[in-house]
């Protein structure tokens, strides 16, 4: 399978990365090189093989459902580019 420039632009949109015409052109070539490389996986017979979900067999750890952390609003917003009263500020999303 290979991708064309329109697919690259669509994927960039899904990934929320702005691309111009030059970027999209370059990426089309690069992505096709990588997709060409992974193509060889089609040679492998995977009939009846379970997909891997965990490299080390283990059961999910459980813990008591109780509060172990919190009251850190100051810490949580400390690295944000724009904040106000412990809220993250973003451009207007609802008119």
């Amino acid at each position, binding site marked *: 399978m290979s991708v064309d420039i329109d697919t690259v632009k669509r994927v960039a949109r899904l990934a*929320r990365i702005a691309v111009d015409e030059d970027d999209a052109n370059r990426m089309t070539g690069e992505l096709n090189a990588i997709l060409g490389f992974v193509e060889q996986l089609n040679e492998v017979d995977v009939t009846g093989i379970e997909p891997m979900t965990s490299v*080390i067999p283990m059961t999910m750890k459980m813990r008591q459902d109780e509060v172990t952390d919190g009251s850190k609003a100051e810490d949580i917003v400390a690295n944000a580019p724009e904040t106000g009263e412990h809220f993250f500020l973003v451009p207007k999303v609802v008119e």
Partner: protein
Amino acid sequence: MTELTKFTIAEIRAKLAAKEFTALELTEGYLAAIQTANERLNAYITVTADKAREMAKASDIRLAQGGARPLEGVPLGIKDLFATEGVHTQACSHILDGFKPRYESTVTANLWADGAVMLGKLNMDEFAMGSSNETSYYGPVVNPWRAEGGNKDLVPGGSSGGSAAAVAAWLCAGATATDTGGSIRQPAAFTATVGIKPTYGRCSRWGTVAFASSLDQAGPIARDVRDAAILLKSMASVDPKDTTSVDIPVPDYEKAIGQSVKGLKIGIPKEYRVDGMPSEIEALWQKGIDWMRDAGAEIVDISLPHTKYALPAYYIVAPAEASSNLARYDGVRYGLRVPGRDITEMYENTRAAGFGREVKRRIMIGTYVLSAGYYDAYYLRAQKVRTLIKRDFEQAFDAGVDAILTPATPSAAFGIADQDMSADPVKMYLNDIFTVTVNMAGLPGIAVPAGLDANGLPLGLQLIGRAFDEETLFRTAHVIEQAAGKFEPKRWW
């Protein structure tokens, strides 16, 4: 003073106890060495001199009072992927511009609790995506090794290029690193240092910037096998904050060193004899086989038939996981924000300006293979192939093999801005051909220096072990180290 920086961690431990020098003197020695060398090598992106002195002074008090901890006063460098409280943590990406976490990663917290001293944060490929340290926002790291008679700058490998270069150039006694497809072992091989990627689940991933969560593992890069064992003992832990951290007590890895390998079965996988492999690598591998046999190990030929599919499967699984993990960099909660007309444009502009080319490429691949209609053809198939890769290893170990010996890399270190590699991303990816299988199967792997090529550049061998059997790796790697000797770069910087 600079001579202080030549001691191994084991030597530092003995000499601090014998009061031959103080922890502060040692730390000052390293800070002076960094000051002289870093402009040329670019291994550190931040030096935490005040913090280092403070920690060293605290160690001296402990040493005087007789309460020394396992790494008391040992100066370490920390890969920029580990969250360090109040200190630059950006995974060497522009998108995390100015990020200073309010918390400490479990791995580094373990090291400080054991008395280690932080010298600073080390350069790396952006978000650990790369095999040459050239994708860093802070520019490439220069390998302290140069070809005999040459003065060309070589890469130290990646993604833990700063860690490997700093250890090799005596700019820290040891370093933390991480390995998703070979990022500890390949740079270790390129710099004649020892690097171990432990079993998935051995070191907590909490507070380590995520790349591909099912593959990422932290481990040390050190001057020798014993130092790697000492560091891993402190880095590893059982951590309730990481659900994939495994509930097995951490053994005293150092005890494995010096134990005989007599009667151990060492597997030699024929699939690692790849087309176009330089004859020097082939010869080095044979030397390794001879050393193991001479030490009393039994050599057996094995087959790992799905080896060649590990790298292509990795380039589906790792980008897919990366595209999900890196979705959090949105210009809202931390790091860089580039304005736009609306919120979507703000996201797109931020991510376009904040991520470098290689990172964008992988996010794009990941987004594509996970997108509607392609999931089964790519991601699901790759995860099935991964099951087969793991099964290959299981069958070898079930047949009685104790460890597997392979080359660590398909070549020695190459030049910075190599034309072939920059023209074709897949060429760069092939650096990890011998290491990536181990991540796909979650197993432990160690790279140990084994010789120099015709140009005088280091080459390494890799040993792969059963899950949670790092001890056999330290034991066997030590045999290679004893036989091969140690290698040091000539100081030109």
